[in-house]
């Protein structure tokens, strides 16, 4: 973040401070003994000094410092505030204001000399006088104040305070006073300013040039406005069809204006609700300090992207999950200082909070450079808790294992600390995040650290939703939960729905997806008595489980405004709210998590999470690709695609002889051709015509290519079916797979190569035998 980005904030804050100081000084004059105000004023000037120092505004810093010193004395009751002091302080404020305006205009401090002002402030601070030592003469309305300072006496006229309203005069006065301590007032007015300040008449400072101080608006008012705008959007939607219906030009153009204005209104309204994430983050340094202290760890918190903005409602929603994750990072993630030193890390652990916008989403990540997550321990724990089977534990990828951390009741920490590790945690975090339409993922490197990333939409008020129809009713599904849409056309040969242990399932590529029929779930009447051949499935990701929702029809995607259903429907978990459609009707928004819960799917998955061995093998079996080919007399032969280097069509004339072998030139290699029909049971030897192209499957053995000659190459099939061994074993065949209604024979390449070598040796041997054979 460059200084330029935060400079406006500095200026706004400085202005606020100065405005408040104006008020406070005035109050202070009325009640000079009020220590609370003095303390406030002192703190404010101190803040301004600190900020100035941060930006390297030396002039500002010096003036603030002098003022602060004086205020410190006032605070400590070493000196008593009198009119003179107040005046000088107010004068200081004016100077500060001039400098701030200069900064706002040019982004640098205006030139100027403040040493006189600083000296006066210094003198005032040193003047250790009490009230009764102050000589006051009110009779002439020409108040003379004498300030004893060593052997100097400064006499000041109170009319001076009026002239102080014009800073440029003051500089002159002070510059003079530098040389002459103890002059009569009259002379002062004649002295020209030695250092005229910039921005005099003719060069007015535009106070609203760069920075407009923000207006503070009541939050409720903002929310009301927001919902009014949402209504406006919906009303606009209802209006739009009239434009076409009546075809009246003037009506149409009026409607178009309303349309555009509404759009703009909506966009700007959304902006007003956007708040920087620093609002939530600001409390974290303290949190980190406390947690680190309790865990006896040394932690440094780094925040990046604090200016990232998101909807206010979302800010509230992410606060608790973030707190939880930061605690986790410190408590579970980071090692103790001694352990860190042993690992060759710095004693102090780092927790990095990062936020940025990405494709219309806000991405927040929490990283630590701690021990990382012990994947094996997660595996063991997951098996112990019966979340997965031992077999799954071995086969699951790391990312899948890490996902288990979000399962309810999962905690790897052996001892339960008072900070985290109560076994509730990441699942709650995940639920909270998905409630606001967000997602969460975790990445961990053993010994290096862990990063948790959450992605949330920019705003809650308006979201994108897919409308579906079930039994004449329209329902909205939040688009953030939708993985994909599947349309099965049974008449086109798509495989339909299957029953698996009482759960309707659907095969989505290589995994089984449990299905929920929306009309059953909502106890609606089945609307398809004619059992159409088309099945529409919306594949959804809920926090517990992935499932498919069967609907009658998939309609359109629309931006919707989410409305609460109210207390009367509190116990209905299937719905997350309602929205109002373009025609003015209300429509229900489905709660993807709630439906999974209600249907018992989540419970089923958790109590019997893919427990059956058969399920596992079926669900998790890797898909295998097979290349189908044909030999003379054998149709459905296959070779695993990973054994195939490439396919080559060769012309007969390319074939050359190398001894008794047929070879071709293949790149830089001489590739031997192997006629598969000689090695596979049931295949007839094919007679190649002179002009017939020969399909060759190129297979590599120890970096040497070998060409498998086949009669014809068909397509590639993907199969999840297991290979069944054939009894008795067939020559050259590994086994067969039943794929659909056909049986595919998989060739045994190792056996074939073995036979081939034997054959070679035999032929060579027979040649030798022939040679050596007696005549």
């Amino acid at each position: 973040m460059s200084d330029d980005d935060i400079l406006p904030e500095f200026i706004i804050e400085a202005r606020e401070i100065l405005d408040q100081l104006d008020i406070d000084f005035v109050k202070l004059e009325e009640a000079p003994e009020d220590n609370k105000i003095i303390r406030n004023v002192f703190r404010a000037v101190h803040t301004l000094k600190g900020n100035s120092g941060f930006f390297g505004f030396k002039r500002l810093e010096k003036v603030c410092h002098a003022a602060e010193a004086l205020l410190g004395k006032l605070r400590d009751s070493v000196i008593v505030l009198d009119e003179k002091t107040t005046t000088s302080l107010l004068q200081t404020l004016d100077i500060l204001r001039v400098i701030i305006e200069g900064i706002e205009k040019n982004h640098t401090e205006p030139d100027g000399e403040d040493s006189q002002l600083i000296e006066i402030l210094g003198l005032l601070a040193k003047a250790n006088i009490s009230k009764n030592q102050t000589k006051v003469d009110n009779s002439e309305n020409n108040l003379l104040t004498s300030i004893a300072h060593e052997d100097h006496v400064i006499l000041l006229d109170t009319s001076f305070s009026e002239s102080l309203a014009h800073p440029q005069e003051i500089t002159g006065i002070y510059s003079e006073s530098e040389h002459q301590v103890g002059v009569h007032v009259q002379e002062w007015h004649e002295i020209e300013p030695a250092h005229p300040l910039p921005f005099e008449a003719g060069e007015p400072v535009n106070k609203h040039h760069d920075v407009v101080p923000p207006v503070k608006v009541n939050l409720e008012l903002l929310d009301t406005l927001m919902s009014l705008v949402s209504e406006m959007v919906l009303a606009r939607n209802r209006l739009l069809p009239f434009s076409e219906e009546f075809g009246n030009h003037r009506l149409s153009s009026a409607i178009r204006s309303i349309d555009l204005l509404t759009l703009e209104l909506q966009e700007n309204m959304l902006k007003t609700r956007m708040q920087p994430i620093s609002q939530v983050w600001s409390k974290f340094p303290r949190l980190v300090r406390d947690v680190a202290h309790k865990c006896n760890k040394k932690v440094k918190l780094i925040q990046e992207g604090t200016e990232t903005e998101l909807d206010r409602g979302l800010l509230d929603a992410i606060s608790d999950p973030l707190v939880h994750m930061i605690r986790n990072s410190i408590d579970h993630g980071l090692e103790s200082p001694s352990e860190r030193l042993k690992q060759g890390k710095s004693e102090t652990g780092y927790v990095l909070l990062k936020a940025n916008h990405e494709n219309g989403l806000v991405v927040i990540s929490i990283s630590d450079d701690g021990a990382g997550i012990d994947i094996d321990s997660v595996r063991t724990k997951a098996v112990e808790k019966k979340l997965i089977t031992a077999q799954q534990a071995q086969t699951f990828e790391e990312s899948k294992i890490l996902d288990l951390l979000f399962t309810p009741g999962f905690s790897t920490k052996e001892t339960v600390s008072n900070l985290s590790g109560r076994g509730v945690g990441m699942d709650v975090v995940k639920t909270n995040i998905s409630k606001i339409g967000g997602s969460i993922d975790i990445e961990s490197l053993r010994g290096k650290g862990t990063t948790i990333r959450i992605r949330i939409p920019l705003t809650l008020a308006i979201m994108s939703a897919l409308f579906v129809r079930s039994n004449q009713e329209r329902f909205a599904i939040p688009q953030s939960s939708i993985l994909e849409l599947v349309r099965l056309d049974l008449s086109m040969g798509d495989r339909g729905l299957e029953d698996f242990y009482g759960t309707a399932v659907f095969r989505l590529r290589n995994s089984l997806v449990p299905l929920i029929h929306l009309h059953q779930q909502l106890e609606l009447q089945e609307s398809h008595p004619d059992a159409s051949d088309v099945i529409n499935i919306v594949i959804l990701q809920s926090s517990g489980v992935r499932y498919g929702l069967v609907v009658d029809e998939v309609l359109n995607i629309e931006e919707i405004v989410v409305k609460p259903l109210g207390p009367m429907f509190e116990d209905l978990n299937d719905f997350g709210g309602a929205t109002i459609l373009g025609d003015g009707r209300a429509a229900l928004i489905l709660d993807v998590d709630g439906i999974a819960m209600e249907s018992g799917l989540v419970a089923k998955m958790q109590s019997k999470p893919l427990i059956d061995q058969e399920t596992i093998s079926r669900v998790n079996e890797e898909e295998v690709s097979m290349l189908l080919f044909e030999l003379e007399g054998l149709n459905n032969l296959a070779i695993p695609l990973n054994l195939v280097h490439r396919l080559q069509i060769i012309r007969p004339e390319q074939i050359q002889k190398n001894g008794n072998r047929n070879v071709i030139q293949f790149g830089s290699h001489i590739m031997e051709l192997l006629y598969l029909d000689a090695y596979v049971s049931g295949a007839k030897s094919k007679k190649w015509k002179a002009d017939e192209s020969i399909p060759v499957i190129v297979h590599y053995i120890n970096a040497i290519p070998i060409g498998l000659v086949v009669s014809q190459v068909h397509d590639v099939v993907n199969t999840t079916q297991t290979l069944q061994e054939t009894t008795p074993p067939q020559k050259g065949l590994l086994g067969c797979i039943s794929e659909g209604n056909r049986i595919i024979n998989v060739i045994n390449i190792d056996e074939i190569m073995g036979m081939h070598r034997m054959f070679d040796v035999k032929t060579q041997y027979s040649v030798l035998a022939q040679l050596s054979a007696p005549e």
Partner: protein
Amino acid sequence: MISTDFATFYIGGMYFGILANDVLEVNHNLELTIVPKSAKTIRGIMNLRGQIVPAIDMYEQLGLIPKNGKTERISIILQCEGHLLALLVDDVGPIIPLEHDTFEAPPNNFPMTARELVLGVHKLPEQLLVILDKSGVVNIL
């Protein structure tokens, strides 16, 4: 005697009244969206100028049997503890001021479920006006 204003309406041929002050407005023909699996007494939700308002099936609520099916098209919108709700009724009558001397609490043999709903009855010259309790309507849900 201080008189109180009652908004009156008809459900299944019976005459009902509710405190006029509780009634926000009366609406005709608001489109209803059913809410599957919700309580039987809730017919659905309606859009009242952008607010989602639950519609109460008064036949169910009062245990009345409709003679010619449920054809209520009129909703009486009430404001209850910060929420709006709509009572579905067959027809509305005038707002009538009534004094307490015509009022009578429900008889002792009045069914318990209805007792939560019905405050009592005003004996009008031509017919009886059953006074409903707004908070009862909400609580029973």
